[in-house]
Every structure is written in structure tokens, then in C-alpha cells.
């Protein structure tokens, strides 16, 4: 009799774990997956190209329904299959429509939710996040008949949404509370180049302000009022102010949670039959939003589920890219640097090329590349390997240099 594994969440983290597990111990579990979206497992990163029309839904599928059948995995998906309760004593998972499944091991991969700021009028129609295929479909639909889009949030997601909607023909304004874009990935100067480049594409920016109120008629958004009291026409408002771990269910079932579900180095929650991976977890105080560390978690978790001895999960440095055509951006590590750090800068003002390297004790601790990201992999390796760069310091920022053996 096989053990039963139930996975809550049909997203990239959960299914990557299942994938890994199938490689390691294909016969060990009878697997049941619950997903709140009516799709197979798709690549959420590809929502951006989906939005601006470079990809179709089929293109971005990782596993379609046939795959689940082929691998004898039971998939319960769709709104009514959202899991509403977990009985940890009976080890039973129950969905909204009453579907239930028993487990020996439970994997929670509920991901994250867009952070919807508490703005008056936010419940009006046309106010949305940018999180799933449904959001994308809603945006595309609006873009076909409406003119004005406002994006709240000048982070990666906000800019990708802005670019997508602009490609769809909308007039887009990005509103960002911080004084510069991508303030978690770029410093002011690099962000300035980015802004200029996006402005050249036609996107408008309102920086240093936020949306104070959503105004409309008949429950439909029509304008937004900004914190400086100016008004912007808005047929849609995309909230891209960040994400928060989706931990409601976990809290309800009594797992230890702070901002996310607390997991140990083996991705085990406070219940040792229950594992969690992805954007819903909190590991050693850290939350996750990028794919590389999540896939690393999936690998570690899969080994645990397969009963293999394995080293624990260690937080991985990972680099950020922006998926906007024509914009090259690479950001990794601590790009601000403290008083004990040194900085190298390379700026091509005319071409909008910018590089910054932060060095501490001859080790690179952070880097920004903007406008030209060639050889970013080489730099990432220097950072990961903590390579001493003293000997190549004056050539470092330009291109890979032979390191003396």
C-alpha cells in the first residue's frame, strides 16, 4: 500500500516538488493535488508575455491535464476545489465542494497573494492584481475596450504589467510611492535610466505619490485620486504593490506561522507530516519571491519526501531580471552597501548602460547591471563563489577577466 501525499497548491513550487519526487521515488506515493485555478500547472513567470501577447496559455503550461493522468496523479482544480480545511488529526484535506483526500504526508504550496492596499474604493470593478491567468485575461479584456490603465507599484510586477498593457494599446501610468522605480533592485541612477527608457516607450510615471482613492460610478472604476490630490483617469487599476504569503489555511490548521509558514531547513512545518515550499513559507526569517530559491526548496523537499538523506536548504543568492523586451537588467545581492563597503560604477550616459559593483573585503556582495547584462553569469559566479577580486579590480566591471590561477 502506497503512502498518500496530498499537495495543496498547483503552482510552480508544489508541482516542481512533485516533479523532483517523481524522479527520485516514482512509486512511493499516491499523489493528490488540489489547485484553486482551473488549469494545469503553468509557468507564472510567463504571465507577462501572456499579457502582451507573445505567448498563449498553452505555451505557458508546464503540465497539462494529460500529464496528471499519465502520471496517475489525481488533480482537483478550480474555484470549488479550493481547500477550505485540513484536519491534522484525521490527516484529511477538504475542499470547498466537499471533495476530500487523506494524507500521510501533506505538502502546502499555496504561494502568495497580491498585497491589496486598503484604499477606499478598492472593491470596485476594474481594480485587480497581477497574479494569475484570470488577472491576465481580465486585463486583456479591458484593454480591448478601455483607454486608461493605472498601475500602482513600480516594482518588477508593476512594470511588467505596465509594459504589457501598453503593448495592448492602453495609455499607462505607473504610480509609485518610492522616488525611483524598482527600488528593491536598483539604485536611483540605474532606475533613472530605466525610467527614461520606459518613458521613451510611452509609459508615464508618477513617483513619490500613491493612490489615495479609487473613484467611479456604478461600482466601476473611472478615476483615481493620488496622494497629492491630483486625479488620473483610470479604466483599470492594477495593484502591484507586492505580495504576501498565502497562509490563511495554514494558520487555520494551527501550523506555526509568522509572515509565512515557518519551515526548517528540510522544509518541514511545525507538524512533521506537513511540508511547505514556495512563496508561502518563511525560512530563517526570509520570504521568497523568485523562482530560483523556490526550485531549490522543491529539490530539498522532494528528497525529504523520498526518504533520502539530504543536506538542508540554504538560502540562495539570486539575481533579478525584468521581463520587458529591450530592457536588460540584472540585480543581485546587496547593491547599496554599508559604510564598510566600496563601490565601483560604470555609466554610459548616452547609451543608458549602468553597472555597479559593491565590494566588501575584496569580495563582491552585490551588483547591478542595467542596459547591458552580458556576462552577468560570470559575475554571479564571482559572488556565489566569494571570489577575491583584488587582482582584477581595475578591470572587473567591464567584462570577464582571466583570474590568475
Amino acid at each position, binding site marked *: 500500500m502506497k503512502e498518500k501525499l496530498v499537495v495543496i497548491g498547483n503552482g510552480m513550487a508544489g508541482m516542481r516538488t512533485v516533479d523532483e519526487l517523481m524522479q527520485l521515488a516514482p512509486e512511493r506515493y499516491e499523489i493528490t493535488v488540489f489547485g484553486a485555478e482551473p488549469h494545469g500547472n503553468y509557468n507564472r513567470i510567463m504571465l507577462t508575455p501572456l499579457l502582451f501577447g507573445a505567448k498563449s496559455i498553452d505555451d505557458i503550461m508546464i503540465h497539462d491535464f494529460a500529464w496528471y493522468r499519465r502520471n496517475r496523479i489525481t488533480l482537483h482544480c478550480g474555484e470549488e476545489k479550493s481547500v477550505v480545511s485540513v484536519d491534522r488529526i484525521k490527516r484529511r484535506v477538504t475542499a470547498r465542494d466537499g471533495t476530500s483526500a487523506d494524507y500521510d504526508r501533506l505538502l502546502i504550496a499555496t504561494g502568495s497573494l497580491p498585497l491589496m492596499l486598503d484604499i477606499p474604493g478598492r472593491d470596485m470593478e476594474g481594480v485587480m492584481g497581477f497574479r494569475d491567468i484570470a488577472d491576465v485575461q481580465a486585463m486583456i479584456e479591458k484593454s480591448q475596450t478601455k483607454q486608461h490603465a493605472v498601475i500602482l507599484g513600480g516594482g518588477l510586477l508593476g512594470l511588467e504589467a505596465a509594459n504589457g498593457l501598453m503593448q495592448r494599446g492602453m495609455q499607462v501610468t505607473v504610480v509609485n510611492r518610492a522616488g525611483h522605480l524598482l527600488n528593491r533592485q536598483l539604485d536611483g541612477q540605474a532606475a533613472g535610466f530605466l525610467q527614461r527608457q520606459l518613458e521613451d516607450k510611452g509609459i508615464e510615471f508618477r513617483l513619490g505619490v500613491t493612490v489615495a482613492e479609487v473613484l467611479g460610478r456604478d461600482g466601476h472604476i473611472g478615476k483615481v485620486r493620488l496622494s497629492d490630490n491630483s486625479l488620473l483617469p483610470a479604466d483599470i487599476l492594477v495593484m502591484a504593490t507586492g505580495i504576501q504569503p498565502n497562509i490563511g489555511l495554514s494558520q487555520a490548521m494551527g501550523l506555526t506561522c509568522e509572515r509565512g509558514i515557518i519551515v526548517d531547513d528540510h522544509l518541514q512545518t511545525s507538524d512533521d507530516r506537513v511540508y511547505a515550499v514556495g512563496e508561502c513559507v518563511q525560512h530563517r526569517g526570509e520570504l521568497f519571491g523568485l523562482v530560483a530559491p523556490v526550485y531549490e526548496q522543491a529539490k530539498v523537499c522532494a528528497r525529504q519526501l523520498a526518504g533520502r538523506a539530504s543536506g538542508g536548504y540554504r538560502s540562495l543568492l539570486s539575481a533579478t531580471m525584468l521581463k520587458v523586451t529591450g530592457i536588460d537588467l540584472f540585480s543581485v545581492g546587496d547593491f547599496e552597501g554599508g559604510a564598510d563597503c566600496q563601490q565601483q560604477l560604470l555609466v*554610459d*550616459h*548616452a547609451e543608458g*548602460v549602468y553597472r555597479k559593483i559593491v565590494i566588501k573585503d575584496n569580495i563582491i556582495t552585490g551588483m547591478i547591471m542595467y542596459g547591458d547584462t552580458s556576462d552577468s553569469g560570470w559575475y554571479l559566479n564571482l559572488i556565489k563563489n566569494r571570489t577575491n577580486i583584488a587582482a582584477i*579590480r581595475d*578591470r572587473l*566591471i*567591464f*567584462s570577464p577577466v582571466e583570474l590568475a590561477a
Partner: protein
Amino acid sequence: MSPTSIKTTCPYCGVGCGIEATLIDPENHIVDIKGDAQHPANFGRLCSKGATLGDTVSLENRLLQPEIDGQTVDWDSALTHVARRFSAIVAEHGPDAVAFYVSGQLLTEDYYVANKLMKGFIGSANIDTNSRLCMSSAVVGYKRAFGADAVPCNYEDLEQAELIVLVGSNTAWCHPVAFQRIRRAKESNPALKIVVIDPRATSTCDIADLHLSIRPGMDALLFNGLLTYLAETESLDRDFIDRHCQDFVPTLLAARASAFDLDEVAAGCGVTAHDVAQLFAWFANHKKVVTVYSQGINQSGSGSDKCNAIINCHLASGKIGKPGCGPFSLTGQPNAMGGREVGGLANMLAAHMDLENPRHVDRVGRFWGSDKVANRQGLKAVELFDAVAEGRVKAVWIMATNPVVSMPDADKVKRALQQCELVVVSDCIANTDTMALAHVKLPATGWSEKDGTVTNLERRISRQRPLFPPSGQARPDWWIISQVARRMGFAGFDYQASADIFREHAALSGFENDSMHGVRAFDISAFADIDQVRFDALQPVQWPVTAKATQGTARLFGDGGFYTPHGRASFVPIVPRGPVHAADAAYQFTLNTGRLRDQWHTMTRTALAAKLNSHKPEPTVEIHPADALQLGFRQQGLARLTSRWGSMLARVDITVSQQPGSVFVPMHWTEQLSSRGRVGALVNPVVDPLSGQPESKQTPVRVEAWQPRWQALLLSRQPARIEGVEYQVKVKGDGYWRYHLAGRDALDDLPGWCRARLNIGSAEMAECLEYSDAAAGDYRLARVEAGQLSACLFVTAQAELPEPGWLCGLFGKTELSRKERLSLLSGLPPRGEQDVGRTVCSCFNVGEKTILQTIAEHKLDSVAGIGACLSAGTGCGSCLPELKTLLADAGKAALEQCSTPKSG
């Protein structure tokens, strides 16, 4: 119509190569330069400097208007002003209160008129020439031995010799075409022996069978030793000595007293007895020996004696006046010899006549129609500027030379001119260190506009013919001098053309030049009635040119006849003397100075040719590795050199070619091109008591590392504004200017400082690239306008500045690629692209790295192979010694690679 082709003569060294210039676009001074295949000096060959003459004939840096006190004036005002002031000073203080300081750059006709005005009509012999600094010891040597300042030999003797001894002469770099003739002679006759006697292992040693790296200044001891050896080994030409010479015995006794045996000579010279014996034996055992000597002999406190020590050996062995024989002084300048012929030195009168000889003074007075002819020696160069400093000379007229740079104790010369009542400077160049001190600036014609004659170092008179009409208000020097002379009220200066002057000069050479009045060596009386047509058609010819010898004279003294009163050659007893100022505890190094391969004098012309600036762009101090180690020097670091007279900064070049205890600095850099690169400021003002030639080869100096707080490299299409930077060298490149900078003061706002240097405001920043590493003290800035690099500046506190080769090449590109742009501020080519490195071959612009790579790729083992692949070395040939060194280095590197055991 095909472009006009004009035959003329090169204006650089004393070899006097013929040039065939083809006018491509005379309006814009575009001219194609090649060697004149018919000229007997070079038969078509040219060196790197001559070959790039076409790059120096633009109007860049030309003085084109007369000026008085900074105001442009017309010629009449300028000439009248000079004439009145000179006349007034002469009237008040006497003729010796004025002086001319002229140049081996002047044509014979210019020289003649200047000498005639000063010695004949102003009545002072205060006219001296920069040739004083270069060959006046050789003049004394020849005059003492032969009774005439006459070079006995010619270039063919170099080809016919069995042994050539090169003493104190880096012929390869200073007289490259003469060197090429020697090199070819050696190639076609491997039996030809070449000996180099020089403290430095110069490029000339490339073809040497023996190099004697003697202690600086020990040449007279060596040649006294040779004379002793010739006597002891029965290698004397007793018959020649008896029939044609005098004073042999006291001379031999003096030689023996100082140089008793080989061991003593070897010890004194600091070389092995074996090497000395080899030289002596070769000299004794070969019939045809030429001893070539140059500034290493002449520029000495005992230069005249050194010349005679050499000549003594040739007289004693009869190696003179015959093919393949003779003591051969190589002069430095294109017309140093012409100056000697007209009497351009303060201790000569004219046409080989003497100031102290009343019959000569009388004769010249009658010829010129003047009763004021000077009858005693005037002030020689160093004395002349001392007299200016002391106010005894109140007006000085400097023509075509740059004494603020080239004189010893040059800072003193500068101060002297700063306080002089009247400084008149005639030159074709506007911005020289000397011109900067002129009250009156007179625009003279440049080489490409000059019309007259020059004499090369084998007595060959050649025509210099104009390629273009005079630019702006420029006028020939002879015209300027004549106009002043006329305004001073003197008759006999009504020349209409240089041919008029040449005719008069030729007539004077033959005037009362016969057995009745006494025979003078210099006689070109065959030209006393030459007309303009024949003058224009004049073919190169060696003087004497007389009714008897209409085709000129290849060699002198073949018949044993000399120009002394008794007709015999004089041996001169020599007591060797070392440098007057020896190195001591405070100044431990002996400073040696000299020329570089690709520069000429004070660089006013050669520095205009970008090609010539790439070989050695900065003033360097060459120093032996052992000394460098002890002083804590590193290659390409900076050093300060200090003597009792002055100081300078130079880039360190550590090389085994330099003797321990001795350093070498090139003589070329000026304040126009370097902030502190004038080596003349350090050189001791010691002179030879007879010739007055300065001891420029041996000055005691202190050498120490000079540690700047920052260093910078600036490249810019437009000249940059650099002021107050302690170390600064400006180099003209092909389409850009290059600056090497260093300072010890802190640059508080480094980016701001850099922007100011490149004239970049906030608007221009939009076209800029910048790199900064504040912790390392690095900042780099570049401006790219319309895709083209317009300027870049690299500053660093600690790191190495980039080798500029690749960056310089970017100025030739119409559009930088994206990869080049990204690499720009690294100073290195994008990955996968080759950096050509430092230029080695100027003719074909081939870099060191290209050569080394080609040697490795094609497994080359000869310079011919390099030439076949890259053309390097197939032009002027000046870089052949360096190519050989690169081959040797590459070979060594390959060997080391093979022999290094592979560690497992």
C-alpha cells in the same frame, strides 16, 4: 599634368640625405617624400624622421607674422626696430654688447650673412652657433692635427673599411642612413669588423663584433693605450710619420705615461684586458680602418683632446687619406658643416680664416669692404649666455635654435633671457621655449620653403630647394639679416637671392687662397661666378671644388699634404682627463644625454609627426636593473633627477643597456611638451677649454623615485587645458593629443577635476561614459560625440594606467562598436580583439604585441621573416635592432616554456 617633383635635402642630422619631394597638393602643403635615389649620401634611403617630413610641413605651430612685445607688426617696423635697438646698444656699449646665437639649421647663405654682419660690420665676433654644443671639439681636433677643419673621409670609406670603430656614437639612431650603409657593408662583407665603444649598449651594438662598455669619459685613455700598443707592436707607419707628421715622440711619450700597458688601460676603462687587446689587435692588423666618432667624444670637458687621441692613432698608422681609412667625425646637424665653412663659430673668421691672424682679418676686410672686421674671438655659447646673464651682452638675436632647452644649465639661460634688454628670435615655429621669451619675433621660412645650400658631414654641398612659397609673412633668414644690416647703415647686403650669397661665399673661399698667400682647405672658387640657372641645377658635390677639381674632392690628405704652416700633420700629446665633475656621495650617478631614434633636437618639428611620437612618447631615464633595485624603482614608475644645476622628472626605463652608476636621459623634451622634462636644466655648464663645447655627457646627478599621489592618461581630439600639473607630457598622435600626467597634490573632487580638463559641463555629460572606484582612487571619463571618441581621461591612485595603443587607435574609427564602447574605460580591447601594443616600426606603424604574436604564430627566427609578414623593418630600418631584441626575447620565452617541467 603630373605632380611636380623637387629634389632637396633632409633638414635633420648631418648625413645630409637627398630627398625627392612630389607635390601632391601644394596649396594645402600635401607632399609625398621619398629618398633621392641619385643622391650620393643615401641613394634613396631615408630614416623614420626624414620619411615623415611630409607630416611636418603644415602650418601647425608656425610663426607667420612679425611681432614686437606681443603685438603683430609689419616687416618694416620689425626690421627697423631691431636695427635701431642694435645700433643704439652698439653705439652706447660697444659692439661686444650685442650677440647672435645661430644654428646648424641655417642654410649656408643665412649663416654667411649673419657672420658677415656681426664680424664684418658690427665688428664683434659674438656670433656663436648651436653647433658649439655638437661638434666644436671635432673642429679643434681637426684644426690642431691638419691645420684645417676638414673631414678627410666620406661614406664610401665606411663601405670599403675592414674595421669600423664607432666611438661615442649611437649611429643607428642618430645617423640612421649612415648606419644602414655600414650594416649593408657588413652584410655583403662579413669580414668587416665593427667595434662599438660606448658606455651604453645602444642599438648600434646590434651589428658590433665587439662592444667596449667603457667607463664614461675614458676614451682618451683607451686611444692613448692604442697608440702605445701600435708603437710596441711595430704597427706604426714610420714612413708616413717621418715624411708627413711632427711631434710624434712627445705624443707617444704622453700616451705611454698614461697608458703603459693593456691591463692599466683595461682597468682605467673598466673593461676586460681581453676586449681591449682585441680592439688594439684589430686596429693594428687591418690596413683600412675608419674611426667614427660623435657626441660621446665631442661633448666633453676634454673633447678636443679625445678627438686628437683618435687622430693620433690614424696618423701613427698612416690610416688616413686612403680609401677605407680615416678619423671620421659625424656631425649632428644638417648644416653644421656649412656653418664651419662660413665661420659661424665665435672663434673663426670666415672661409677657414682666423680671427687672430691679422693678414686674414685684413683680407676679409678688403673682400667685404669693411674696416671694422673683428680681430679677436667672441663669446662661445656658454660664455655668451653667461654674458647675457651678467648684462654684458644687452641684445641677443637667436636664429633657428632653442637654447632654453638645449644649452647646459638651461634654467640659467632662461633666467638670462628673461632679464635681457632685447631678445630677438627668428624661427619658423611660434611656440618654442625660447620664442616665449622674445621681445621681437621674426617669422623665418621653414624647411619646405628654404632655398640655398647645406653641407653634410662628408663635405658634400647639396641644394635645399623650396617646395612651397613662404607662408604668411615668413621670409628667408638671409633676407631678414640683410634687411637689418641695411637699416643699420651697412653696405654689401643688397642680395636678391640666395645664389648671390653663395657666389660671394664661393668667391671669398678662393680669395687669395694660393701658395703665395697661403692655401686654405676650404675652396669652392669654382662656383665664384655661378649663375642662378647653374645654382638651381647644382648637383651634390664634395669640396674643395676648384678649377683643378671641378667635380669636387672625395678624400683629403691622400698626398700627405696638410694645411699647417709647415705642411705636416701634428700629433697632439694627450693627457687623459676624466669628467670635470665626478659622481660623489651626494650625486651618485653620471647623467648621460643624447638623441632618440625618432625625435630631432627640441621636437619643434618631429613632434608634429604623430608617427614619430609613438616610439618613445615620454622623457625617460634609463637605468641599470641593479641600481633600480637599490633605489626601489619599478619599470614605468617616475623618477626625479637632480644635479647641482637643476632637476627634472622622467619615466623609469630599467634596462641592462645602461651601465650601473650611470643613467641616460634623452635631450629632446621642452616645456612646450613637458612640465619638467628639460634635461638641459641638469647638465653641468663645464666646457672644453679649447672648443668651448659643453660636457653634456657627464653630469653628476641624484636619482630618486618620485611617488605621485595620482597618475593620469588623457587622450583628446582637441588640445586639453592642463595647468599646474607637476608631471605633464603632451604628445601629438594621429588625430588626437595624448597627455601623461601625475601629481602629488590631492584632487579633492576627482570627477569634477576630470570634467574640467575635458571641458565637459552637465550638458556634455549626456555624451559621456564614466567609471569610478572611489576607494581605489580611480576615475575614468570618456566623451563620445556622434559615435566617435572625442576624449578620454584615466586617473588612478594605485592601479596601472592602460597601455594607450588600443585607445589611440579608437580615434581613427568613425563609429565605436557597442563592444568597444563597453570596453572603452577599461582601456583594453574587447575580449577576442588584439591589442597591437607599443609602436616599434614607425614606418609601417607595427606594434610590439603584433610582432611578438606573429613571431610565435609563424615561428619566425629572422628580421627578414618579420618583414615578410608585417613589413616591419623594411622601411627606414631604424627598428631592426629592436626587432632582433624581440626575436631574442620570443626565443627565450619559447625555450623557457619547453624546459619548464610540467608539474603533475
